[in-house]
């Protein structure tokens, strides 16, 4: 799987002259087809206490595409990801200002129903974290929080979520066994199924393969490309080759600022910004 993804036809990858929005020297190639923007950030700043983690982030994440966020450790890509489903809220001293919207809904508003937001935006974490329950109950946990189901509908929901995560064939005979009996790669796919089951529009993935072996990594990367027709996917990765394999658009973060954002092809073959070029060619990391 070394060839770049060829399924989606070229999209909105005009190389416009550099547009600085907020942070100095940010090169952002905007998504031209504005109806197909899922998430929009404009001048987003965020702090943990007195430490500023994000400085003036402005970017657009298109619908039903895979967008990769890359950059060295501590550059703010995970922080940015977690503002999308407000998972920074429990962290003491975490606050943000600026604009961050999902299909026009203000994500930073105090009165936002965070519970409902997290139904629309699912998250898969770096280390698979299935609950100490059966496979069935893991997948059914999320939907049961938000709705009450007839048994047949719930069964259908669980089956299809597991199919969508390419896990059904492997577990269909042991749905009631403990989820902890699965291998690492299977557990991560279970976490994906769990996130899918609540019916989100967006899937956020925070380094989903970094705790997995190469074979599981490959199967999850393939799954991500297959899921993209149904979901908007934002993936944080420190593995540039993975970003190149899996995503349509890439955003390069550095020390809390967005340095460059554009189509994956262009970022990796012909970046505008020198810093971007240094990073993707491995001169620092």
């Amino acid at each position, binding site marked *: 799987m070394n060839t770049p993804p060829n399924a989606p036809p070229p999209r909105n990858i005009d190389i416009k002259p550099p547009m600085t929005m907020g942070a100095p020297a940010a090169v952002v190639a905007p998504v031209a087809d504005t109806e197909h923007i899922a998430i929009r950030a404009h001048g987003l700043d965020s702090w943990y206490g007195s430490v500023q983690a994000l400085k003036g982030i402005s970017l657009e994440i298109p619908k039903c595409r895979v967008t990769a966020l890359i950059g060295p450790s501590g550059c703010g890509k995970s922080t940015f990801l977690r503002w999308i*489903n407000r*998972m920074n809220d*429990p962290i*003491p001293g975490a606050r943000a200002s600026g604009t961050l919207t999902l299909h026009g809904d203000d994500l930073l508003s105090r009165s936002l129903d965070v*519970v*409902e*937001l*997290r*139904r629309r935006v*699912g*998250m898969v*974490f770096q*280390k698979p*974290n*299935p*609950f*100490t329950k059966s496979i069935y109950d893991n997948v059914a*946990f*999320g939907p049961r*929080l*938000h709705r009450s189901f007839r048994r047949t509908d719930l069964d259908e929901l669980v089956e299809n979520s597991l199919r969508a995560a390419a896990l059904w064939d492997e577990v269909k005979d042991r749905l009631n066994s*403990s989820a*902890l*009996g699965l291998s690492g790669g299977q557990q991560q796919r279970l*976490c994906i199924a*769990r*996130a899918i089951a*609540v019916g989100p529009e967006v899937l956020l993935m925070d380094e989903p393969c970094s705790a997995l072996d190469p074979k599981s990594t490959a199967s999850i990367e393939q799954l991500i490309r297959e899921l993209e027709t149904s979901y908007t996917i934002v993936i944080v990765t420190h593995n540039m080759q993975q970003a190149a394999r899996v995503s349509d658009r890439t955003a390069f973060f550095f020390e809390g600022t967005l340095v460059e954002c554009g189509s994956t092809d262009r970022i990796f073959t012909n970046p505008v910004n020198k810093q971007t070029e240094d990073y993707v060619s491995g001169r620092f990391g």
Partner: protein
Amino acid sequence: MHSLGARTQSSTRTRTPGEIVAAATPTSQAGRRIVDRAFLGVCIAFTALAVLLLVVLVVSIWQDGHARLSWQFLSSFASRKTEEAGVRAPLWGSIWVCVICAVAALPIGVGTAIYLEEFSKRSRFRSFIQLNIANLAGVPSIVYGILGLTAFARAFGTANSESPITFGQPESFFYLQLPFGHGVLAGGLTLMLVVLPIVIVSSQEALRTVPGSLRTASLALGATQWQTTWNITLPASIPMIMTGGILAMSRAIGEAAPILVLGVPLFIRSTPTNLMSDFTVLPLQIYNWSMRQQSGFHELAAAGIIVLLAVLLTLNALAVIIRHRLQRANG
């Protein structure tokens, strides 16, 4: 001046660390080894002493008391005649009081632990509560007896003890009297105060063992904090919470001072029938018997102790079994 010059002269050449070490008086290596061995001997001796004390304790009590153990001992009431006396009243009193204590202490204790661990952020308020609980753990149990006496038995003097407000018939199980007087309910609630810090601390530790990633995963699916706690965190920590609860019960069963302060009658010849019944507990009965100078009561006290220790052993064995069962079920 002279001494200064002399000092300056000798210190024109400084010594290396190696020379300083070589010039110092060596400690005898053999001496060090002797000290090391001797200390090990002291350690083993003291530890053996601790074990020996336990053995002497158990053996002497068994010797004094085992002859009085019998089914009749368990089913008779106390009596002035030592041959006829038994532990029926205090045994049942202890069981009643402990059950009431558990029913009261577990929800409040676990609830407090959940609040502190899951629902509150690091703040001065939370530190204040934690500090308070740590201090309550050090309060002598007799002071809790005073608190129980005033708050439960006397209801702070609001109601008249001579003519209490009553609900229901004294003969039935559903009989309530305000203030509670020195019935089993007052006893159980007083003991609840004694064991509450233990339950809270052990429940907090149980909750802390659940990995944070599970809570994060649950929140990310759109669960509220309570849904996360009830569905994910609590079930995972139930084995340890149960163990802590049984440990607290072991403490409660052995307490006599708070019950003493409540003012229970010395001589009880009945087992409790409802929450307001008079009662006594095993430790108190043992205390009463130990105080008597007449021969025969000495053996009764020892036999009572054996019964009490047997109950404790059963409780602890229960704790171990429950913990193993639940840990296996959790996978």
